[in-house]
């Protein structure tokens, strides 16, 4: 998101669909790959939560592996 800067801000629902193409009649509002970056960033918040949060995993590591 930092790389595309201001163009991380637009949220175009239609851009989330596979095969989406920007309007060819005009200079596109930002690079095509920018359209889905913010949504991906928000969705990736789940990685440190689901299937046992990072905190739970650390509890397991400290108990089962380190033996504290």
């Amino acid at each position, binding site marked *: 998101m930092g790389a595309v*800067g*201001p163009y991380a*801000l*637009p949220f175009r629902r239609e851009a989330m669909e596979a095969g989406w193409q920007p309007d060819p009649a005009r200079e596109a509002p930002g690079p095509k790959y920018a359209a889905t970056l913010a949504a991906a960033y*928000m969705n990736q*918040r789940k990685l440190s*939560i689901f299937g046992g*949060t990072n905190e739970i995993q650390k509890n397991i590591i400290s108990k089962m592996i380190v033996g504290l």
Partner: protein
Amino acid sequence: MNFEFSDEQQQLQDTVDRYLTDRYSFEKFRAINASPSGWDKAAWAGLAELGVLALNVPVAQGGLGFGPLETLSVMGACGRSLLLEPFLSSAVIATALLRAFADDAAAAELLARMAAGDAIAVLAHYEPDSRYETQWVRTRAQKSGDSYRLDGHKAVVLHAGAADSLLISARTSGEPSDAKGISLFRVPRDAKGLVLDQYPTIDGRRAADIYLEGVQIPESSRLGVEGGALPAIDAALDIGLGALCAEAVGVMQALVDATVAYVQSRQQFGTAIGRFQALQHRIADMLIHLEQARSMSYLAALRCSDQNVSERRRALSAAKAVVGQSCRFVAQQAVQLHGGMGMTDELIVSHWFKRLTAAELMFGDSDTHLQRYAALTRS
């Protein structure tokens, strides 16, 4: 240093705080967000009635003649309530910009209407390849006779669709990266040849890319001298940056409060999760980030209208770098500590997260401002 609001500033803060708490609930936010226009005329009229839209308008144009400190005192509540209306764009940035041209009769008249809530103006300045460089302007204004013809493309203009008037920068001479040669024009949003490609932003506001395709405007629409508009545009954007820092602090405070309440009530392993030291430390870190950001937002408010440009920009870059880093930390940790709930659309936490993510990217991200701070410190 002792930083305290005056009685007047405190009163202003309390008034706006109460108004938004009573009249701009999360449910209201969701309803406005789901509406086609993405903003609410009644809420805007309510803000006008409180006098908040007149805050930055000079007394001569029927305003209150206040400045950044009073703006700071209301921005926190705007952030916490996730205000979707164009307060920052119109009542702060465009107002600050028009103030510089208040000797122009049309600009003065527009200011008076903005103070009363009868008109909305928005600055359209950044372009697709300018990133956060304000002197990069490729849009051209060509003069013929007593009119100008505008051609170009303005990027991600917040609240463009809500505006009656657009304040559009265009180059009347020089190369795209020259600081000189940039002029400012007042253009009606429904001008012929002006095309708006509107979309919501990630935090639920509305923005647009603006295509100027041979827009004809009279010479009298130019604000100030030809080619000399950049210093006024920079000054207005810097005032906006100061206000954005204060808004972000309001959101961060709300997120810290919500997270503290959540870890005290959420039960796991037979106790409230707030009893676990790992989470207590995390919350302490969130609070430290919040307080650092708050201090820097005060610095930004105190310096954002400084006439000494390099001092002003140094302070603002320092502030935005710290506030931006805090935005990211506080937002990410708030979601993490709320667990899966923090990602849901039904909980306001995810919307605060999105507002902070947008705030970090506006007017330059943390990396940009760290670089600027370094460059200004070396020189």
